[in-house]
């Protein structure tokens, strides 16, 4: 294998063997085995300790079937899917103009300042950031106060314990994962492409639709996939900003594990969520006609 040979040329035989061994152990012990364990869990019924290994202990798809039999869980599953798509689209809508501004409009100074302002909040833990939104969006919180003061509303709006709060919180939480790939993609576009389109008569919208967006497609796809995965797998934001009105599938999984004590069922649900994410990713890649290689860039 050429990688091994390259490493050997640089570090010598014994060290290379050690590096590869560590890598192998890490991949097997920390990544592969736990996953296999979870697959095994998900395929077995939840039994009392003394029933394990008994006649009832065998592989079955019953845990997976639960989701399709339970109307509420299925609804939450679909709602998580739909809401994550919505979060992704909203984040893209917010991030694209921002990325365009950073990449092509702002002076280097402005861009640096703007990036700094974007990044600083991420020095704080996600839970704390979500809590700050909890305060901002509260029924008697600053946002409602402001809107009332401006006379835009007569009485406070209940932002929390519903989808609106979750959307706001998630767009905020994952904006960087969208902005950076899109920004990188737009940055690499030759300015003359945009100038040429303008020169040939194209307005702003058409220039973006025909020139900038097609060029930035891999970046947009990357951003969408990351945002969707994070949104679908998010626990803190819906738990803090959405409950009890907006439940996320991750909360059901959590409940199976830690409240229902049914790891087998939880594992099955977790894998269903994983399948959903992989499905979404393949769909996006197909729609945007990009390969894994484009995204890895």
């Amino acid at each position, binding site marked *: 294998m050429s990688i091994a040979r390259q490493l050997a040329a640089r570090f010598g035989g014994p060290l290379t063997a050690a590096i590869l061994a560590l890598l192998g152990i890490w991949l097997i012990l920390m990544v592969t085995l736990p996953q296999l364990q979870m697959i095994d869990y998900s395929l077995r019924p939840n039994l009392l300790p003394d029933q394990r290994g008994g006649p009832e202990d065998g592989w079955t798809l019953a845990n997976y079937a639960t989701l399709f039999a339970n109307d509420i869980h299925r609804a939450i599953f679909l709602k998580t899917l739909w809401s994550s798509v919505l979060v992704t689209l909203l984040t893209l809508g917010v991030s694209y103009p921002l990325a365009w501004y950073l990449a092509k409009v702002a002076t280097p100074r402005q861009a640096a300042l703007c990036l700094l302002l974007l990044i600083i909040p991420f020095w704080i833990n996600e839970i704390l950031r979500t809590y700050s939104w909890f305060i901002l969006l509260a029924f008697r919180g600053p946002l409602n106060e402001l809107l009332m003061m401006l006379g835009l509303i007569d009485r406070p709006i209940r932002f929390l314990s519903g989808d609106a709060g979750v959307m706001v919180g998630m767009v905020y939480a994952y904006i960087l994962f969208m902005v950076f790939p899109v920004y990188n993609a737009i940055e690499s576009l*030759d300015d*003359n*492409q945009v*100038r*040429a*389109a*303008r*020169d*040939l*008569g*194209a*307005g702003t919208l*058409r220039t973006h639709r*025909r*020139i900038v967006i*097609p*060029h930035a497609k891999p970046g947009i796809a990357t951003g969408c996939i990351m945002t969707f995965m994070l949104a679908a797998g998010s626990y803190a934001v819906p738990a803090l900003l959405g409950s009890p009105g907006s439940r996320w599938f991750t909360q059901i999984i959590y409940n199976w594990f830690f409240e229902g004590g049914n790891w087998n069922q939880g594992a099955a649900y977790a894998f269903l969520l994983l399948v959903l994410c992989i499905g979404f990713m393949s769909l996006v890649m197909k729609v945007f006609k990009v390969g894994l290689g484009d995204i890895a860039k």
Partner: protein
Amino acid sequence: MDGSVRLEEVVMRFGDFTAIDKTSLTIGSGEFFSFLGPSGCGKTTLLNMVSGFLTPSEGQVLIGGEPMAGVPVNRRPTAMIFQNLALFPLMTVFDNIEFGLEVRGVDRRTRRATAERLLALVALEGSGPKRIDELSGGQKQRVAIARALAVEPRVLLLDEPLSALDLKLRQHMRSELKAIQRKTGITFIYITHDQGEALTMSDRVAVMSAGRLQQVADPVTLYRQPATGFVAAFVGENNRIEARVIERLGERVRLDAGALGELEGRVGEEAGLGVGVEVALYLRPEQLRPVAADAGGMTLPARVESVSFEGAWLMVAARLEGSGEVLRMQLGSEVSRRFADALAPGEAITLGFDPAETVVLPRDDGPRVDAETGEVVEASDEHR
């Protein structure tokens, strides 16, 4: 269709830096007009003011007599060919050419017909469905021309479009561009730092330096009657001898060239050549020739420094006995055969010239062109 372009006292400043000093100029409809100058002279800035990418700090641009102030890039009757062509790499050749028409809401069939016609004009029939990266450099060039022509501009702006091509192709594309310009009758405004391009293609050339027009003239006048020292040095090759005016003799002036004795030269375009004025005498390398040491007329004793074979001619560098300056002399093959023996390094040689073929210009403080490197020297470095 009036494709004339008029610049009225335009000034372009970027902060403290003045890229274009007050400039007025009229380019006729259907003219092939070039801006020639070293990089950084402001020629691209001028082009961007015509295309609308830049708004002049002062003055105005008129196209076809209409003021362009407030008219955005996408509404101007111009089309630009970019230095890097800026073809759309994700589109086919057809889509590239049709882009401007698509924007204008032209229907698909008319678009395709126009694209086919333009591809025929640039000799690329059948390349329509190809991807841009399947094309060679010259083919890309042609697609860029077709794409710009598709929107039927009144003025085509070309920003050094040939600079990325190799020499042979570049020379070929020159005649091609000229032919396309004649066929379409569109005003071409061509930006280049390559004097060969400017001289061979243009009806008129504006030589620019440091944000100012040095001279606007047809190529022959530019070469034979340079108006400033910068033009004399930048357009073609020129030897320069510093001197002082002793006497005006009508079209000619008698000069005191210090150690080189008295010389005569032809008065250049500028009239300010009174007695005692510091001037420069410009001698083209092809106007110098070896003569017998006792020949009459203008002679300069020298010693051959080096001889380089350039194919159709020999380039001889000779150091003047009087001043130690090196002059370059270009000899056709016939002359060089005749003087074969005298043309070895170290041999004594006498250079002769006809004063009628020279130009005498007042010494100005403007930027100059270094004779050996061809680089532009700013006014402040003018001590040698």
